[in-house]
């Protein structure tokens, strides 16, 4: 199997599916819970084939109630299981918000460390798939603000494969964000034999000297495209895939910004109180004298997610990133 996987070209959906399978093989306490995760394999097929191979006791189709899913996962975790919960779409995580922020996040603390909460909550997030309302949200800031939760976002197939396994192995609850637009988009080569970077680290995915661009999940691709385009205009962008949103891994970010003097944060979430706000605040605090321009934020506007025919205007794209690069450099 390992030999076969080596050199395999996979999509993000496949990477996640393979990662889940590995985790389930490695630890019989790992369970999958959610709506339609069984026979259907999830609406995005991320859990495809897992119920068939691991049985209904380990891949559990839940009644249609998100609070119920997360709340019962809490009980399962208390009993020693490691539930991996699938939320069908970002916009449907809110009925479970109370269980997540008041229970999942706080039980370790409440119990003085006696009751760990090794739960992974997978959320397909972000827009760009032409969907109806509530199917394109970016709720990361609402979780990152809550102590006790960890929040990560994968951006590519290989990270999907490794990060989901690492999240499941983590003894803390992890909100695991998957850029749904990328599920079946690009393929990448997976080498199963390497040792992955730790989960809670950010990664420079393109080096550059003029401006630092911080992205995660779906916007990493946007940022890389922008960097490519900018290089045609003689501008060198350094792109960092944040990967972890809580905790933040500031070292590579600060290191980069100290070199470039400029930073742009790109996310699909609303700008107001989005991750960009926190990054701007921290970068400014840590790199005050290195900054040549304020940290700029390119994000979803502060409107509800619009009808899908104009979603590409709402979402940050290559041009809006380049526009911010211009503004930063001209500041």
């Amino acid at each position, binding site marked *: 199997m390992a030999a076969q996987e080596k050199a395999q070209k996979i999509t993000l959906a496949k990477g996640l599916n393979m990662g889940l399978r590995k985790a389930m093989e490695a630890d019989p306490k790992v369970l999958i819970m959610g*709506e*339609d995760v*069984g*026979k*259907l*394999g999830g*609406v995005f097929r991320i859990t495809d084939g897992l119920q068939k191979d691991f049985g209904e006791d380990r891949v559990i*189709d*839940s*009644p*249609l*109630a998100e*609070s*119920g899913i997360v709340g019962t996962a809490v009980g399962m975790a208390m009993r020693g299981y490691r539930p991996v919960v699938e939320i069908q779409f970002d*916009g*449907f995580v*809110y*009925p479970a918000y109370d269980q997540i922020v008041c229970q999942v996040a706080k039980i370790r603390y409440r119990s003085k460390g006696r009751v760990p909460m090794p739960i992974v909550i997978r959320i397909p997030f972000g827009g760009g798939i*032409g*969907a*109806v*309302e*509530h*199917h394109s949200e970016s709720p990361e800031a609402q979780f990152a603000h809550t102590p006790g939760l960890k929040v990560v976002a994968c951006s590519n197939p290989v990270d999907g494969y490794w990060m989901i396994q690492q999240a499941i192995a983590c003894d803390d609850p992890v909100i695991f964000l998957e850029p749904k637009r990328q599920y079946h988009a690009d393929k990448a080569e997976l080498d199963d034999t390497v040792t992955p970077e730790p989960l809670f680290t950010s990664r420079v995915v393109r080096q550059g000297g003029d401006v630092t661009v911080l992205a995660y999940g779906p916007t990493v691709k946007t940022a890389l495209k922008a960097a490519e385009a900018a290089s045609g205009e003689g501008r060198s962008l350094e792109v960092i895939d944040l990967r972890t949103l809580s905790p933040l891994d500031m070292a590579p970010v600060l290191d980069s910004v100290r070199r470039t003097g400029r930073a742009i944060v790109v996310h699909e979430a609303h*700008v*107001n109180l989005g991750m960009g706000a926190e990054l701007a605040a921290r970068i400014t605090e840590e790199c005050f004298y290195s900054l040549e321009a304020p940290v700029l934020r390119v994000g979803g*506007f*502060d*409107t*509800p997610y*619009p*009808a*899908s*025919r*104009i*979603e590409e*205007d*709402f979402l940050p794209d290559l*041009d*809006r990133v380049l*526009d911010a690069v211009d503004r930063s450099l001209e500041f």
Partner: protein
Amino acid sequence: MNPFGPDLAEVFGPSQSDGGPELVQLLTPEGERVHHLPPGLEQFDLDFSAEQLRGFYRDMVLVRRLDTEATALQRHGELGIWAQLLGQEAAQVGAGRALRPQDFVFPTYREHGVAWCRGLDPLKLLGLFRGVDHGNWDPADYNFGLYTIVIGAQCLHATGYAMGMQRDGVVGTGDPDRDAAVVAHFGDGASSQGDVNEAFIFAASYNAPVVFFCQNNQWAISEPIERQSRIPLYQRALGFGFPGVRVDGNDVLATYAVTQAALQRARDGQGPTFVEAYTYRMGAHTTTDDPTRYRLSGDVESWKLKDPIARVEAYVKRNGLADADFFADVAAEADELGATLREGCKALPDPQPMSMFDNVYAEMTDELGAQRDGFAAYLDSFEGAR
């Protein structure tokens, strides 16, 4: 002691839960009229005029056409997605035609048939699925709310709206043109959501004039009804202290009769009722779904024999309640509707990008205005520029 109180038990309620035949049916799949209803349910045996029957038939044929056209439009890329009602025409038309103008409806995303009965131009339904809007009608014009996508949320809105009606003095006055009620639509899957159960609690607590109309189409995407409930769903209501009844949702007559009685109870100030319309989702969950992954084609075939339109057609024909012209007219009307939808859909204009900033607030705030203006300036910078 009857814990449900005497008046409730008379009509629905406990008589259903212990022993009585569960399913209220007035028209068999073969199109035979059932007249001998079990004790307690006789009042559902309404007389239907030929005109009414033809009306039901026409409604269902047109609604089905609406559905198949929209499905086709999705296949041709004109809609992003479509939630099909195939098989649920009787449930929706029966429920829709039982309404009075002053009643108010809270739909899910699948109530195209109810929308039809409320007089909505079907084209208005397409915008959301095409991605040009989130719903483009004024609920007040039709007493028909916008489609709600978060499962179950609208059941609480319906209950609150009904509480508003109580405060407006339009419940239990005895004036048939004044007394009003609300219908909350939801699915079998939705019955598991906390919000739906809380709606039952609030409605019972305040005796709100709301009919909880559940289309049990046996599936919540890939999950069968057994995942949500191991007993008949209508019995859920009994535990909350109001009556529940299961009606054959493929029987437009029975659905009409039961919904109408439930609405009247509500209008009369006797509180909520749960109506479970027992039906089947003949199509996929939506056009992006692949039901072959989770259900047997044999099941679908057996439900085809219970088609809601065929049985009305058989009954009407057998009893000579319509002539060939009628059927031809309805067929022509359906074709016309199809053509209108095809053309109309393609002509639905895309929204202007800048409209994204409208209606976030009653008045534009300075901060959002600045964001909008910045975006406008940015867009302008492309004129000729890059």
